[in-house]
């Protein structure tokens, strides 16, 4: 299927001021394409969560969006500590966020479960000491 949009957003570690800007732009682009509002909401929630994870947990990374006729693919790739126990990280309420993130209202341990719930397909790969890659697919009905 041909790619309609390909966009790459660099996301900096610990940059809480700009956090959410990539997701806002992703939402704007999809809205312009006329994507259904329910799908748009699901993509927005998942992209914001994954963007915040890059800010909170990684040493920096990027968010990539590809849109084709069948749907939206979001890929988050980072350099960072990686996730030692993915099964544990996927549990609601489990978080390793630091004090700064928690004081801002993050670190509720909802990020990864929220992404999985909102995406039609969700996969996560991580290598300790190297980084994490999350791929999500949202079907356009």
């Amino acid at each position, binding site marked *: 299927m041909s790619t309609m949009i390909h966009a790459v957003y660099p996301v900096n570690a610990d940059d*809480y*001021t700009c*956090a*959410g*800007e990539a*997701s*806002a732009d992703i*939402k704007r682009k999809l809205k312009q394409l006329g994507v259904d*509002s329910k799908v748009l*909401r699901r993509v*927005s*929630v998942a992209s*914001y*969560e994954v963007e*915040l994870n890059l800010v909170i947990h990684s040493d920096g990374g990027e968010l990539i969006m590809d849109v084709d006729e069948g749907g939206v693919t979001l890929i988050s790739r980072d350099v960072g500590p990686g996730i030692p126990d993915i099964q544990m990280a996927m549990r609601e309420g489990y978080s390793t966020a630091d004090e700064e993130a928690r004081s*801002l*209202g*993050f*670190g*509720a*341990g*909802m*990020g990864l479960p*929220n992404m999985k*719930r909102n995406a039609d397909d969700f996969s996560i790969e991580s290598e300790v000491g190297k980084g994490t890659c999350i791929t999500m697919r949202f079907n356009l009905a």
Partner: protein
Amino acid sequence: MKVSELIPLIQAEYMTPSVSTDKEITCGYTCDLLSWVMAHGDEGMAWVTVQTHMNVVAVAMLSEMACVILPENIDMDQDSLEKAEEEGLCVLKSPLSAYAICGKMAAAGIPAEN
């Protein structure tokens, strides 16, 4: 109920004067954990929170909420207010507690979910 009608009901001060208060509120919510709000936020929501930083604006905008309400006269950062105006998000500040604000919204018929 419109945002303009909610303002007197909760004795609020309107913090984003360049944004129209004509938006319809369809449900109400209170929570300070942003990830939790991302999971439960909805279109047309009036969200009561003590958080005042930039990410509040991002969460409210991404969920297409009607307004953000700061309880107990908490002030929002100037940067966040500017961002809210830029994005067209209504921000209200009320002297009442989050509990009292939600009580008044519920009594006025605003439901917990759409």
